[in-house]
């Protein structure tokens, strides 16, 4: 018999009894989030924390940094792309721009990411495979040939050699007649997450941080519209962290950069508004939305209350999102289209400023033209068909989302304390703290899959006997020798005296305390190769090796 009770506690009690009496599924699956946060079957108004009304565009920006949300401007559709040679990638960029993409995002190959030239012995087999090969300004000129850098924003995913690639971009713009002050874009330049997760480090932490601060300081003066750093949780998450670890470690890295800039003597409001962030959008839909909302709230509080930033722009956490590469499966790859669409929706409901949607075939190789277009079309469908962009933070006020946002915040603050106890981010890296936390989380998740407490469709359940063969992008092995010949040609034909003088001056400056950006820019203009510039700095800074922990 149903009773119409008025007392909310009594109503809740009634529901609770009925819930407990109802048969539960016995599939053995976890009911916690993919990160292991226990969930209640139901959230109600009693789960809402007491707080002042939060509104978009107002501190602490939980509901978004813009008062107009996506009514004012949609997110930027920015597909990460790059492969083979500069010519081939230039062609892909023009194809994507012609198909309605609104910003560029450069993927570099492994030798470029590791600061070595294509003719270095360990570049063998790696050239042009997971991005475009760039050895010198000559390649960069080709990469952006016919693309006016004054009218487009470009994101460059590069870290240890970030300063060099930014200088190459500035130098290409100079040749196009575009002043640096007009350039817009983002440099990933986030070395801390390399030590923590992606492991593309070259120099030890101290000189690495110096280069990051040099570029932030230089850009504040010379390239004021540039996002000098993209503080990245993506790689931390892909390495196996939980959502809360991604959130906490990324924001802790952000604070470490703020500390380093302040230590250099910069004023917080002179650089904080150019810091940007980059998060993963994983498959656990609500957890991800809560993570994005919590990130904005935490950052705003720390910037205003801990660091004393006065400028509102310094309080606003702006971020790019990429859907989760690790969630994609080689089995039944068409399923990846559905996964990516759901993850992209979480990013949009979380208020992302820009978005990359993975292509269905990215688990196998770099995307084909067709798969790349389909991924972009997924975003266009979200933006223009579904209506999700019409209302700002549409899940704000949901009992569940608000409670989960608070939980994310709580877990992140607990991590900040632990990191502080370890002496800060760099000592924590040297103690393998992050690395162990991430490896533990990755192993735990893998165990859950093995025990089938979590399902990945097509992998540990709902499998098919014979996998369908899909077409993948192949990198022509001939391009390796072409790229090697090209860098040798650049070295043979440049003004040798100018180039070696520039490198000598860079070496001297590296041994001192000057900002290195002008010296790197001069070396780039003189067609010094990336490897030569890096090696010059390695002579002074040395190489970092990590202790391998499992």
């Amino acid at each position, binding site marked *: 018999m149903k009773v119409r009770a008025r007392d909310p506690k009594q109503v809740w009690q009634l529901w609770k009894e009925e819930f407990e009496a109802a048969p539960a599924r016995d599939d053995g699956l976890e009911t916690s989030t993919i990160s292991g946060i226990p969930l209640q079957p139901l959230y109600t108004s009693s789960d809402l924390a007491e707080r002042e009304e939060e509104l978009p565009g107002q501190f602490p920006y939980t509901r978004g940094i813009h008062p107009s949300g996506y009514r004012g401007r949609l997110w930027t559709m920015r597909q990460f792309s790059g492969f083979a040679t500069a010519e081939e990638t230039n062609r892909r960029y023009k194809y994507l721009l012609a198909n309605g993409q609104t910003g560029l995002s450069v993927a570099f190959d*492994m030798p470029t990411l590791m600061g070595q030239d294509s003719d270095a012995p360990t570049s063998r*087999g790696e050239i042009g*495979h*997971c991005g475009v090969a760039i050895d010198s300004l000559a390649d960069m000129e080709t990469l952006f040939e016919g693309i006016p850098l004054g009218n487009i924003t470009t994101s460059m995913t590069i870290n240890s050699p970030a300063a060099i690639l930014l200088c190459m971009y500035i130098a290409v713009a100079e040749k196009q007649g575009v002043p640096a002050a007009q350039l817009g874009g983002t440099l990933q330049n986030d070395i801390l997450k390399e030590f923590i997760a992606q*492991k593309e480090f070259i120099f030890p932490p101290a000189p690495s941080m110096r280069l990051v601060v040099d570029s932030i300081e230089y850009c504040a003066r010379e390239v004021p519209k540039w996002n000098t750093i993209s503080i990245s949780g993506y790689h931390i998450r892909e390495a196996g962290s939980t959502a809360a670890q991604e959130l906490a470690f990324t924001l802790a890295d952000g604070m470490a950069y703020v500390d380093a800039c302040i230590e250099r003597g910069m004023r917080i409001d002179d650089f904080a508004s150019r810091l940007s962030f980059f998060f993963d959008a994983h498959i656990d839909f609500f957890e991800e939305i809560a993570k994005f909302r919590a990130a904005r709230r935490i950052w705003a509080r720390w910037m205003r209350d801990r660091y004393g930033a006065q400028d509102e722009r310094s309080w606003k956490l702006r971020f790019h999102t990429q859907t989760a590469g690790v969630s994609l*499966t080689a089995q039944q790859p068409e399923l990846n289209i559905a996964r990516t669409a759901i993850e992209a929706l979480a990013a949009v409901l979380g208020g992302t400023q820009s978005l990359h949607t993975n292509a269905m075939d990215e688990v196998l190789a770099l995307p084909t033209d067709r798969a790349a277009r389909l991924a972009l079309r997924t975003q266009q469908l979200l933006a223009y068909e579904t209506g999700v962009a019409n209302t700002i933070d549409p899940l704000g006020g949901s009992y569940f989302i608000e409670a989960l946002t608070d939980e994310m915040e709580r877990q992140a603050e607990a991590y900040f304390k632990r990191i502080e106890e370890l002496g800060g981010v760099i000592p924590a890296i040297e103690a393998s703290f992050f690395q162990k936390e991430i*490896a533990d989380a990755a192993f735990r998740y*893998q165990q859950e899959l093995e025990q089938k407490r979590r399902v990945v469709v*097509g992998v540990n359940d709902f499998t098919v006997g014979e996998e369908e063969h899909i077409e993948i992008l192949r990198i022509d092995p001939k391009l390796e020798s072409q790229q090697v010949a090209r860098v040798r040609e650049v070295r043979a034909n440049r003004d040798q005296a100018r180039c070696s003088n520039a490198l000598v001056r860079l070496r001297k400056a590296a041994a001192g305390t000057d900002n290195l950006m002008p010296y790197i820019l001069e070396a780039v203009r003189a067609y010094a190769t990336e490897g030569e510039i890096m090696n010059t700095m390695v002579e002074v800074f040395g190489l970092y090796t990590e*202790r391998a922990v499992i």
Partner: protein
Amino acid sequence: MPANTAVRPVRIVLAKVGLDGHDRGVKVVARALRDAGYEVIYTGLRQTPEMVVDAALQEDAQVIGLSIHSGAHMTLFPAVVQELKRRKATDIVVFGGGIIPDDDIAALKQKGVAELFTPGTPLQGIVDWLRKRFPQGAA
């Protein structure tokens, strides 16, 4: 490996070859193989084929497991097999894992890589393969 058997446990050198730093997979596999009773030596990142073979010989390993995610597997995996031939250590079994397309798997097996495990492989699958390959533990 059960404690009461007299055989030596199989020693496995796990290595990241190539320039990429994606070590999630290799670390998960390392823990799983250790838990399954194997002696696992993880070399860390950016190992050249020469370094991998050096490590395997020094550690008296019966197996080398290679991990890569950069797309350079067609160059680097066969280079490890070649290096083993050069050092006359072809009794060491090489297996690999990473993002490796089907067509490449067949080609790599022809070049002497014993087995390849791609994303989505259950850890137990790797353990089962090793048990079959070394039913008596190390020779």
